[in-house]
């Protein structure tokens, strides 16, 4: 159910796409190598709180369980989940534009992905493969990434001020406060 993807203003997106046979290791290597090549490409999607790429090779089966028959995935599957702000449609637009350099290496290795993994075609592919959430828990679902970053920054500044201004007389205190937090700061 679509509405279960939302808590506050936060949206839980998930896409699960089958990986082309033979592309499993190159995809894994590519994703694992992203860290070493600089900031994550997801940094370009400013409305992303936390996100992950996970390749699931198969379901776990255990002969000691009461499960009568085993179940296996036909292929490896790439899961992409994102905890994002607001409207999904515009987020996917942004993703398909800003992640265009990487999308070919990632979803381009998945079955059914359009040849040019970007723009409207990629968006359609991701929407087609969206998995709805059953329960979505968000500790601060009302807050956007921008609000979170702003609040964290203000907190840092306030701590630094509180430590450095300790023991100041009222006039000096106010002066110091305005120097740090005055008009427009």
């Amino acid at each position, binding site marked *: 159910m679509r509405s*279960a993807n939302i808590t506050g203003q*936060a949206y*839980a997106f*998930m896409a*699960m*796409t*089958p990986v082309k046979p033979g592309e499993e290791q190159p995809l894994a290597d590519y994703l*694992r190598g992203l*860290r070493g090549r600089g900031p*994550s490409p*997801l*940094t370009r999607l400013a409305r992303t*709180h*936390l*996100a*992950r*790429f*996970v*390749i*699931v090779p198969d*379901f*776990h*089966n255990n002969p*000691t*369980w009461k*499960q009568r*028959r085993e*179940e296996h995935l*036909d292929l490896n*599957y790439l899961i992409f*989940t994102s*905890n994002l702000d607001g409207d999904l449609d515009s987020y996917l637009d942004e993703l398909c534009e800003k992640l265009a350099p990487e999308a070919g290496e990632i979803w381009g290795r998945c*079955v059914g992905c359009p040849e040019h993994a970007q723009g409207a075609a990629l968006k359609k592919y991701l929407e087609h*493969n969206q*998995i709805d*959430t*059953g*329960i979505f*828990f968000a*500790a*601060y679902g009302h*807050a956007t*990434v921008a609000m*979170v*970053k*702003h*609040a*964290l920054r*203000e*907190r840092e500044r*306030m*701590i630094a001020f*509180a430590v450095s201004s300790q023991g100041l007389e*009222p006039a000096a*205190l*106010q002066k110091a*406060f*305005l120097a740090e*937090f*005055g008009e427009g700061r």
Partner: protein
Amino acid sequence: MSVQTPSAGPITATGTEPRNYDGQAIAITVFSTIKLRGRVFLPILFRVTRTFPQLTGTLRQLSFIHFARWSVIGRLPYNGPPQKKGRFRYPHMYFESNFNGGWEEYIDAFSHILTSGMTAFWGSSYGFPKPLPTAPFKKYIQDNETEADHYYSAYPDATSSMIQRALELDERVESLKRDAQRLQPDAFAAAYRRFLTESQNAL
């Protein structure tokens, strides 16, 4: 004397695999196969929990989770060959969480403090041992867990608690800024002292 029986679980450390970290944020990704009764029970559980958010109260109190989700997957969208078409034989539950602290502390907290919650969510999964004792439960999670290939946080240095407190603090900071503009020094100093007293657990 105690009977020597084989030991109860895996060798666990406080941490998890390296790719599950981005700064302070930790990822856990788990798939489990659901029994027949779960097909009926889980959607009801989800609806009840969504309708009565106070049920997630303890989860919220634990305050080391940023975002978490559970989904039941009965079939996957079809994308053409070589993907196989059709429903799964069993439904599968996807669980992911983004949290702070240690992997072991996280599972311990869930086992001890959310015991009935854990049983409600995982009880319909094959192979699920009870949440207590924790060692077999930890092994179960470890066996069903997949390491992330790429994990990202927009604010890796921040913990969920820190963010929640910083957000509450924000409004008070704005109010103090206005006070600084308009009050006389003594009045401002008093307002500042009040602010510190009220906000100290966020600083």
